[in-house]
């Protein structure tokens, strides 16, 4: 019961979705709407679960005075701060328990939640993401080395596309006559993107789709059930 009933539910919901894709007749067309709406609500609840886990693990690290516990304390405090101001005064569009906090807004220039978003969350997120610029340079420096035939293909196409994507690539091959304009770098790099690249992307998409169909089928049929864990 603890295991078979959930498996039956998974089977039932999966089949329902597939059947309603092909049968326009009621009740299928209506049932699927309900299922989708429920899906949203359940996933809303699930989010709370992770926050509790985060709270607990940080708290235990602080209690045990693990190395760097002070940083975990900072993390916990910022979590609580964001949560509390969010619930008390709401976000940009929605008011919280204390309404919109207009006085506070006037002195901060924004709601406390949005203030934290703009000046702490946003720079952190954007800077973290921008590290990629450095990493892509170091990866290119380290990995694009002439070795085997395959790695040469990788490197040469990368170089052509890097050149072709900038204004500079166009200038570099602008002297190539009109009748051979295929060999101008921007055109060449577009050609690579449009044909060989599309072909490989398609192959990956098609085969991965088959993998997804197979895995989904195994889940629906209850063959794949590791996500439910053990019986004990």
């Amino acid at each position: 019961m603890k295991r078979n009933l959930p498996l039956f539910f998974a089977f039932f919901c999966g089949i329902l979705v597939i059947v309603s894709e092909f049968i326009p007749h009621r009740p299928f067309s209506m049932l699927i709407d309900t299922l989708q709406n429920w899906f949203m609500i359940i996933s809303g609840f699930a989010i709370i679960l992770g926050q509790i886990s985060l709270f607990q693990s940080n708290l235990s690290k602080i209690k045990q005075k693990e190395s760097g516990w002070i940083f975990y304390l900072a993390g916990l405090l910022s979590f609580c701060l964001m949560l509390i101001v969010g619930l008390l005064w709401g976000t940009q569009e929605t008011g919280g328990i204390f309404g919109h906090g207009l006085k506070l807004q006037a002195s901060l220039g924004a709601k406390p939640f949005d203030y934290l978003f703009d000046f702490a969350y946003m720079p952190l997120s954007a800077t973290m993401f921008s590290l990629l610029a450095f990493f892509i340079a170091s990866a290119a420096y380290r990995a694009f080395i002439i070795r085997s035939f395959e790695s040469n293909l990788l490197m040469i196409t990368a170089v052509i596309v890097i050149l072709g994507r900038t204004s500079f690539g166009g200038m570099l091959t602008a002297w190539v006559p009109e009748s051979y304009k295929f060999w101008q770098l921007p055109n060449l790099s577009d050609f690579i993107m449009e044909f060989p690249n599309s072909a490989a992307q398609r192959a990956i998409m098609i085969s991965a789709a088959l993998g997804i169909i197979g895995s989904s089928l195994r889940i629906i049929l209850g063959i794949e059930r590791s996500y439910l864990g053990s019986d004990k």
Partner: protein
Amino acid sequence: MSVVNSSQTERRIVFLILLVAVALPLIFPIGWKTGVTNYTKMVWELVESTPDSSVVIFSFDYDPSTMTELQPMAEAMLDHAFSRHQKVLVTALWPQGMQMADQAIKVVKAYHPDITYGQDYVFMGYKVAGIVAIQAMGKDMEQVFPADQSGTKYKDIPMLREVKTLKDVAYVNSLSSGTPGIKEWVMAARDVYHTPVTGGTTAVSAPGLIPYVNSQKQLYGLLGGLKAASEYETLINRVGSATVKMDAQSVAHLLILLFIAAGNIKALRARKRRAS
């Protein structure tokens, strides 16, 4: 250990050079020009050919982390849509999307001071569950958007009076940097309800989406990265933020090519040393 150390030092040098090389052209602009590519043209044509006062959806499916690339697109496309008098329903499949939308609208309002909320655009808020929400829009928009962000009931919003399902929308424009995003719109809106879908994405996600820009027009063109954004700015005759940043781009690209060359020279030397 010394190998790790020396490669660490090399990494740091690479990082430092890149930082300087990108910063310099921003301070001292060069002014290289770019041509317009097909995929950008297709997006522009869809917006251009959509009749006046059609209702269109702009979905902001990204967050601050990709705004350098996607914000200029959002601004340019909103600018274009408003100049064609289209009515924009703004939604987001990413929670932070609505904040991005708000910023973009503020910028665009400078060019179109006459647009009014509820008549020309409306904020319908963030919708969770991605593809499931889009599917539901195809059945009944009012159920997905019971009210706008300020609580006005769906049926009381003037510009949405005629819009019952996705089929009544002239096109969907998804500016997306991942899942859920363009792919979900293509799967659930274009493939099921035949609503044209177009959009913009980061340069990195573009190759994965290009297969959808096919003869069946699963996707009507695609803006990929900052270059496409600056091309769009060219098409609507506006010198926006994207154009300015292209110089720094070109320098960085050249630098990375130099890094590749340097890496190869280093590897070649190491091989020679080993051989001798």
